[in-house]
């Protein structure tokens, strides 16, 4: 089986669940012997890694790839693009403008790269998505593959184009939808792109039944072609157990994720306030960044709990491990969470979790406390119980840790292979 995969982010530059999922799935597919051509966007200027620096940005169609030692059957192809997995039309515009400003600062108004840059990256995100599709078609010319597999909406147009130009079946993988990201304030253009991707796909993979229901109910896709493949968790040996030295004598309740509407930061604060009414030695740590960060900081201050809520900004690598080591409890009050890999990681680090019922991960985790994201009283009730009763924490931790070990990317990969086969057979008929 050969797969042309339109994905996102690879270590060490992973900014969220989508990158983690693409990486985990691809590694597992590799172990299944599936040949993957992994295509991802890379913005040259912002990327410090050495292999990118070797490129000449003046050659717009230049491809770059390098190999990860443990991946035997995976080839990487990058396309110069400013697309990023959590971008919005606004952030995209900002990103481009910032880039242009930097260029001008370094090279002056007439720097040659400036013009190349403008030529390389389309001015708005929608055009960029289509430019990316055109680049992908060109890139696919030199590749042999059986199936096209595209992850989330920005790659759907590329998936459609590549599948059509080469006459191969298309599988789209829905890690999140516009309804998760924006609630009822849906961006119509993005919705259209998502729906077209799902409609044109031969098979749609949803990361949970929660998401499958949205795909069927909100996008009008026939349930026959929507399969659920849960994400997994990779455990690379033992995580380092080094002492952090940061630990205070108080307890730490952790929010880890992008601070956006979707993740429900205000419900976390609401619960924190309730908890602090009856408990004193607790700190609430919000690790992550996002468009609601400023508002959330202000909200905490306005609620009078500013000194009890700590913001760390975006964490990566060892810092993530460290924060898990410090935490007594992880809370994910997401308003709409297609899956939610972070709670699995928390459990993998022996941190018990409270998760929103409005999440895909609540379908696979039994040994977790579950709440409605809006039920601030109940979130607080459960936070207090975990902090107050060690046997609860102990039981959640031991069973939870055991439970996540059973969620393996290998199983997800096998299901994907099954989906590829079905996609191929529908095309053959």
């Amino acid at each position, binding site marked *: 089986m050969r797969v042309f995969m339109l994905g996102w982010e690879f270590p060490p530059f992973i900014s969220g669940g989508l990158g983690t999922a693409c990486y985990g799935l691809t590694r597992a597919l590799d172990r299944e012997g599936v040949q993957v051509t992994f295509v991802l966007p890379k913005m040259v200027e912002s990327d410090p890694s050495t292999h990118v620096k070797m490129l000449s940005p003046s050659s717009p169609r230049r491809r770059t790839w390098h190999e990860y030692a443990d991946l035997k059957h995976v080839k990487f192809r990058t396309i110069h693009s400013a697309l990023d997995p959590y971008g919005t039309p606004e952030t995209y515009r900002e990103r481009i403008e910032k880039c242009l400003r930097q260029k001008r600062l370094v090279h002056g108004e007439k720097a040659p790269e400036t013009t190349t840059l403008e030529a390389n990256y389309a001015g708005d995100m929608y055009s960029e998505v289509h430019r990316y599709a055109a680049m992908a078609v060109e890139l696919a010319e030199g590749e042999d593959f059986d199936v096209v597999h595209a992850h989330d909406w920005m790659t759907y147009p590329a998936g459609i184009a590549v599948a059509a130009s080469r006459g191969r079946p298309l599988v789209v993988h829905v890690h999140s939808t516009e309804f998760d990201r924006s609630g009822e304030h849906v961006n119509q253009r993005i919705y259209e792109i998502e729906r077209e991707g799902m409609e044109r796909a031969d098979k749609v993979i949803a990361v949970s039944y929660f998401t499958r229901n949205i795909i069927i109910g909100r996008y009008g896709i026939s349930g026959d072609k929507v399969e659920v493949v849960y994400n997994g968790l990779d455990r690379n040996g033992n995580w380092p157990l080094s002492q952090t030295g940061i630990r205070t004598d108080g307890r730490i309740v952790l929010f880890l994720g992008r601070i956006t509407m979707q993740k429900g930061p205000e419900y976390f604060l609401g619960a924190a306030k*309730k908890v602090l009414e*009856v408990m004193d030695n607790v700190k609430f740590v919000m690790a992550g960044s996002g468009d609601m960060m400023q508002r959330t900081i202000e909200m905490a201050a306005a609620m009078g709990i500013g000194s009890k809520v700590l913001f760390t900004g975006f964490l990566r690598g060892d810092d993530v491990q460290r924060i898990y080591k410090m935490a007594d409890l992880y809370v994910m009050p997401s308003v709409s969470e297609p899956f939610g890999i972070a709670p699995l990681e928390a459990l993998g680090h022996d941190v018990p979790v409270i998760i929103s019922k409005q999440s895909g991960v609540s379908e696979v985790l*039994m*040994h977790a*406390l*579950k709440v409605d994201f809006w039920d601030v*009283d*109940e979130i*607080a*009730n*459960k936070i*207090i*119980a975990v902090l*107050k*009763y060690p*046997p*609860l924490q*102990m*039981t*959640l931790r031991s*069973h939870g840790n055991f*439970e996540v070990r059973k969620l393996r990317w290998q199983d997800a990969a096998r299901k994907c292979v099954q989906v590829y086969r079905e996609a191929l057979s529908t095309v053959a008929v």
Partner: protein
Amino acid sequence: MASVCFYFQVHQPHRLRHYTVFDDHDRYFDDHKNAVICRKVADKCYLPMNRLLLDLIRRHEGRFKVAFSLTGVVLEQFERFCPEVLSTFHALAETGCVEFIGETYYHSLSFLYSRREFLSQVRKHSELMESLFGQRPRVFRNTELIYNNELASLIESTGDFDGIITEGADHILRGRTPNFVYRPVGCERIKLLLKNYALSDDIAFRFSNRGWPEWPLMADKFAGWVHEVNGGGQVVNLFMDYETFGEHQWQDTGIFDFMRQLPTEILRHPDDNFKTPSEVIAAYEPVDRMDVPHLISWADTERDLSAWLGNSMQSNALHEVYRLESQVKKTESDMLLRDWRWLLASDHFYYMCTKYFADGDVHKYFNPYDSPYESYINFMNVLDHLRRRCVRHLKGGSAKGASSGNAAPALQKIC
């Protein structure tokens, strides 16, 4: 001669309402939910089955007999939520073919944690049986058939009972049959009846299982199996939850028809008959000693205590609730004592069981909570509040204890 000895367990706990750490009132128990469940089970099981048994007893003119163990807490609920059930039990008692067995009034695990509380609950239950049904129990069964040598000795020492009922677990039988009467190690007088779990479970669990080779189970076939015991045993103890009839096995499985036919089929063999536990004890002598040094129960395949004591939440909750005993009793408040005792029901701890939780099985079916964790949190929040009430009461300032949302049942006044 093979005697069939039926004993049915009837119990419903007082389920708790959702109680958060922020709640500050003493209406711990969910009257609405308890009433709904009680009436539902009454309609599906207690009423139709009681009527059927009454009919069978009359039809067989005293040759068909059964025994019941009714907890105090289920009788309290019958009185409040469906008194007609209580009157059908009265009618059964009046036939003279029904024996009532002794147990802990509150369906508690008190034997494991407090002998004083245990004996007081056993006494309270016996008094209730006597006042309601005019007979003082002579045979004892402990909650969930939890048993060991020590329990037998303790029960014998009360002088109130002639026999004990427990599970015929393989590892205590060691190749012997449960179809005889035994004598517990360390006892001189008391006798032991062991549940024949194979034949009991054919009715209680396998009856409607279409994958079971013996399905559909008919009364004549079952009577044949009982008859085969002749020569190798004297009594077949069929012990099960009463809710088997109509609730666990729905009416459309044919369970009522099976029971309607069974006495006729059993009595077709002139060698076979029905006996109550006391009659079995009077009729047969022990054939051997039964040594049970370690605790057993009738739960799950393990037949141990792991359904109530399998994880640290359960042992913590049990430990904490019994730790409150002396404080609660010191208050001498009837309401505090009653609330505390309602919390002792083994069901609350069963709900916290994480064994098999992920597989979603029989444990889940009986569980009003979404998860064992929810039930632990709820229980601990209530217990915490009860503890604060005790403290307040002992400090002397509490008028709150009197204003309970749960009306004190008249049953309690009877005793």
